[in-house]
């Protein structure tokens, strides 16, 4: 029996070592590619391109779809901020998704809305019935009022029907865009007619200071739960997604901010309202359709920090979000299982999806069981400490290297944190994340895996929103009447 245990522990530890070596090895390659791409993007002369796009009458118009459910506190500011973006032709479509507060009334009072008989497109389908349609005289703002079915994707689909521009951009009502965000995100569409979707770098807005709808000061947030997410977003968005996009294997464009060709979205029927990972689902569906029809296509990623979004500021909210992401990933994998290891779907089918299946979805199982067996084996003497140290190196050591490299890339390329103190905190957070948070996170993800495998009902949580910190006296989030605590459904995503 002891002999069996020794053999078992020994081989499980080796499986763990090989598993994490491949996992971190692949990610380090993606990270390297991402770093090269970020470096290229940052150094590429873009100011002329952006001003050309802004000044030109041929620049494609953008319909910005903003689903809003009980957003009375921030909706007016959000629309004003969108109107102030530097872009020649924007049409804002706010979808009032069954709000029971003053969301619509605030919009009506502030933007002189009037009923409109605008003809909506017949597709995509959505469940919640559209009750009213309002618009400004100039037509730059349309408000679609609909019954809520408690699904963001349903609201976006309703908004898509009112979107009439070549490009559609979906954002959350509490996302804050950089002033040139739309110019950045449209540049790939202009430069390459085969581009069907573009994502941008999203950063946690917790800790940043906002003035008149623009980020003016970037500091590390005060809570560790928020700081940890800053590191995660750096690693996943800034480097990870840039890297995946550079090898033509991008699978996710975040729901918080992404742009697509309207026709491409409509061809796949809009967002899948049954999916917990509707944003990834949309990208995969568009890629699949283009590949199936052998059409040239590209899903691009702009390695510029263009969008700031508020992330959960309590462990409870974060756990709900991460469980849902994990479950959403499982559902997506099950839905698109025919694409996995299918050469017809290129890098997405042969590398990205298998990577997400093996390491992102099933990762928590390996993480929890493997770590337990290896640690117990080392303590009881079933395996040598040397072997345990090797397992520790490939799992924790390489992860730490990738986190620190992400921080280095941020610091070299963008250096958005103005104080040296913030950079030091960022470095410390990489260690805290790996040593403590990683275990907890793995446990939450494991719960998501369980829910996906056993088809448990979807769980949509709420995030306590603290609002953005406003610049100047009398605008602190605690005493600002415009930024009270609000609750809303969290944005779907499947991995940071």
């Amino acid at each position, binding site marked *: 029996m*002891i002999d069996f245990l*020794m*053999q078992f522990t*020994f081989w499980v*530890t080796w499986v763990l070592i090989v598993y994490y070596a491949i996992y971190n090895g692949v990610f380090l390659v993606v990270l390297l590619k991402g770093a090269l791409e970020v470096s*290229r993007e940052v*150094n*590429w*002369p873009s100011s*002329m*391109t952006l001003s*050309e*796009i802004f*000044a*030109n*009458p*041929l*620049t494609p118009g953008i319909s910005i779809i903003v689903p809003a459910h009980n957003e009375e506190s921030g909706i007016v500011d959000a629309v004003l901020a969108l109107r102030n973006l530097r872009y020649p032709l924007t049409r804002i479509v706010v979808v009032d998704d069954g709000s029971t507060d003053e969301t619509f009334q605030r919009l009506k009072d502030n933007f002189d809305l009037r009923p409109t008989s605008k003809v909506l497109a017949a597709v995509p389908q959505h469940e919640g019935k559209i009750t009213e349609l309002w618009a400004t005289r100039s037509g730059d703002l349309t408000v679609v009022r609909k019954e809520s079915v408690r699904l963001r994707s349903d609201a976006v689909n309703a908004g898509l029907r009112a979107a009439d521009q070549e490009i559609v951009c979906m954002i959350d009502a509490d996302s804050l865009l950089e002033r040139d965000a739309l110019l950045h995100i449209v540049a790939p569409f*202009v*430069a*390459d*007619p085969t581009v069907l979707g573009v994502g941008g770098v999203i950063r946690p807005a917790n800790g940043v200071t906002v003035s008149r709808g623009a980020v003016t000061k970037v500091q590390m947030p005060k809570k560790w739960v928020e700081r940890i997410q800053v590191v995660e977003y750096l690693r996943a968005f800034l480097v990870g997604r840039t890297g995946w996009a550079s090898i033509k294997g991008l699978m996710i464009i975040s729901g918080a901010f992404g742009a697509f060709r309207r026709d491409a979205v409509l061809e796949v029927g809009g967002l899948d309202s049954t999916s917990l990972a509707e944003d990834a689902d949309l990208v995969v569906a568009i890629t699949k359709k283009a590949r199936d029809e052998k059409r040239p296509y590209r899903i691009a990623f702009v390695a510029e920090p263009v969008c700031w979004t508020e992330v959960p500021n309590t462990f409870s909210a974060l756990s709900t979000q991460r469980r849902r992401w994990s479950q959403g990933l499982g559902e997506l994998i099950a839905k698109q299982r025919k694409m996995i290891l299918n050469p017809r779907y290129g890098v997405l089918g042969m590398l990205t999806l298998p990577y997400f299946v093996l390491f992102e979805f099933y990762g928590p199982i390996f993480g929890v069981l493997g770590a337990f067996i290896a640690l117990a084996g080392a303590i*009881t*003497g*079933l*395996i*040598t400490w*040397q*072997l345990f*140290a*090797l397992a*520790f*190196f490939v799992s924790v*050591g*390489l992860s*730490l*290297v990738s986190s*620190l*490299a992400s*921080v*280095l890339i941020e*610091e*070299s390329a963008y*250096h958005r944190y103005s104080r*040296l103190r913030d*950079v*030091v905190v960022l*470095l410390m957070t990489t260690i805290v994340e790996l040593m403590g948070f990683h275990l907890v996170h793995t446990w939450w993800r494991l719960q998501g895996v369980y829910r996906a495998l056993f088809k448990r009902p979807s769980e949509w949580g709420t995030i306590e929103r603290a609002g953005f910190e406003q610049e100047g006296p009398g605008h602190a989030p605690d005493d600002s009447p415009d930024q009270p605590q609000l609750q809303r459904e969290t944005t779907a995503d499947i991995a940071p």
Partner: protein
Amino acid sequence: MIPSIPAIPTIPGLAMALLLTTATVCGLLALIVVAERIIRTALAHREEKRRDRVRPHILTIVDGDTPATLPRRDRAALSRLVADTASQVRGEDREALTQWLIGQQFHRAHLRRMKSPFALTRARALDRFAPIAEHAPRSIERMLGDRDLRVRSLAAQVAGRSGMAALVPELLRRTEGTRVIPARIISMAVLRAAPSSIAEFGDTVTDSNHRVRALALDLAGQLNLVDARRAIEAGLDSPSADVRMASVRSIQRLGSPLSLAALKRMETQSPEELFHTEVVIHELTVG
């Protein structure tokens, strides 16, 4: 005590060595992050001071005078500042600044870098060269055929921004062929270059390639080139639907009743063409 299996019997100490290496790499990365911040802040501060020091010399250059002799690094900073300023001003001021840059041989280094094997280097050189691009149209024309799409697109933007109407035919021909430039970027560049006559389109309005011809006719209409009327009307007889539709759109934009006869003569080949043509005929007739 349970006997352990010797895990790595052939490479003793490997795990410990790897752990130590990782720790060292992590420490180094952290150190580089902090050092990068400190060094960059110091360099930016120094560059800012240098720019403040040389900024008054710009007025001297604009006045047509020669600035005082400066140390090498200050001279380089002044060149960069003048290049930045030249792209933001127009008329005599711009001319004075670009002439000074040429006198400083500013273009030589950038022309050399525009032949670099690295696309990023070529793009950056092209961007820096932009303020004096109008003095070297052949170099920009060569960059329109660069092997990297983004560099070609950037060259098109430079051509448009510098008002290089002479490059319009070359720009339009880049719609098709081996080293193409996206049509939207070409259109932006041509509109920005703003040629004042159809003659500056060269033979692209009669090009055998229907995409080139269609784009040329479309842009002639967008630029309201009245002297393009006959070339546009000739497009109505093209076997290509793209060219015919471009001609119809341009006639609509020009709004000249003189084109009515040509429109009425046109043999439409699809319901869509017929519809658009009749709309334009109606508009021109009603006035």
